[in-house]
């Protein structure tokens, strides 16, 4: 039998999340975000949190729900548009914002999970992102030293998961979820469908269960579309 990671639901899963903690939240825009855990954190009213998440949701969905209640002290993101309340809090100085190039953000999360404390990347060299960072040339090209990111809790959303914590993501809802799952001291996975161990093909698992400490089947996924773009038939 594999190690069982199942918890009852969002409430049990989020136990131990406290004011002032650093959290990673998977998702890109509103795609692949842990809707159930976000709702639960709104309910439990945890405050002063630092959120590492590529985006900050929209006004009335995703991380925007936590912003509305001023639960977030600091956002660590690559892009934070599409959110008026975010803008208001940022411009008024209520909210700290640390902007990081998207590729560096992804790699820094992976590094955090992989025991690599720092790595060199060309991204951001010569920009304000490089300020205070070590610069070194490799193959004639300047690179900056970026450090690993970790979190007290990483909260990810998957399509399918099994009792052993193995995860499979659907399409681009994968995005930052796998790296963040690696980088959480405790990683919570909410999934659309929770199956028994042995039901997922071991060869097609995106996130091995070792990276997941708690898993539950979420409910009522809205999966809101941020930019609905279509073409007409014919």
């Amino acid at each position, binding site marked *: 039998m594999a190690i069982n990671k199942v918890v009852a639901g969002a409430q049990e899963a989020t136990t131990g999340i406290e004011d002032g903690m650093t959290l990673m939240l998977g998702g*890109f*825009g*509103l*795609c*692949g975000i842990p809707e159930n855990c976000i709702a639960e954190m709104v309910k439990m009213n945890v405050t002063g949190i630092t959120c590492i998440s*590529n985006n900050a949701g929209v006004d009335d969905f995703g991380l925007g729900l936590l912003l509305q209640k001023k639960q977030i002290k600091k956002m660590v*993101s*690559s*892009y*934070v*548009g599409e959110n008026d309340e975010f*803008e208001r809090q*940022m*411009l008024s100085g209520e909210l700290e*914002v640390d*902007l990081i*190039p*998207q*590729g*560096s*953000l*992804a*790699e820094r*999360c*992976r590094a955090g999970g992989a025991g690599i404390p720092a790595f060199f*990347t*060309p*991204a*951001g*060299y*010569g*920009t*304000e*992102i490089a300020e205070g960072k070590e610069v070194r040339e490799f193959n004639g090209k300047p690179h900056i030293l970026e450090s690993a990111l970790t979190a007290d809790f990483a909260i990810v959303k998957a*399509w399918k998961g099994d009792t052993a914590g193995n995860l499979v*993501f*659907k*399409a*681009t*809802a*994968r*995005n*930052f*979820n*796998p*790296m963040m799952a690696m980088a959480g001291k405790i990683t919570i996975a909410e999934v659309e469908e929770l199956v028994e161990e042995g039901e997922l093909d071991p060869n097609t698992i*995106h996130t091995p269960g070792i990276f997941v400490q708690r898993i539950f089947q979420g409910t009522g996924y809205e*999966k*809101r*579309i*941020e*930019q*609905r*773009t*279509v*073409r*007409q*038939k014919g």
Partner: protein
Amino acid sequence: MALDKVGIAKRIAQELRDGWYVNLGIGIPTLVANFVPQDITVEFQSENGILGMGPFPFDGEEDADLINAGKQTVTLMPGASIFDSATSFAMIRGQHVQLTVLGAMEVSQDGDIANWKIPGRMVKGMGGAMDLVASAENIIVAMMHTNKKGESKLLPSCSLPLTGVGCVTRIITNLAALEIKNGAFHLLERAPGVSVEEIKAATAGELVVPENVPEMKID
């Protein structure tokens, strides 16, 4: 007549080469996908985790779990693949993506680009732009030649905070196609009906004009 956004996209499409993987930024660059020459094959990469991105879905077939980096619903082409953000930027940083097309607020004659931040205004973030411009071998900037105030966006040096340094190799604007090399803008083509004088007047940075400047051929 200066090009419109579609015209700029059509001209950029002429820069595509068979077998290239291409990342298209938000705005004008996205339109380039509509004008790929029929005799070549390219694949579009979206940095949120798609290779082989297809057109928008038919009405009613959109999937909230399948979006591009602009958060628009998209489809997959046959032969597409999906991956996480770390792998996506491994492709970009590792120079496996041959071409990046993106917009800009300013470009300098040294190839510097500024496209993410205006001091005093709400900063939305650089997204993947800094990774893209720091790595791609070919970077084409798609933009209007001048800003809303009529000021040149092709400058001796950028006044806005940089996105990347010495990285832009080509610019396609509403007025012209230009190459950046040896610390100057080199005029390659004029937009249909646009004179060299007009381009000179709209370019604040050093502009090298060859004897003969052909007019773009846009269908």
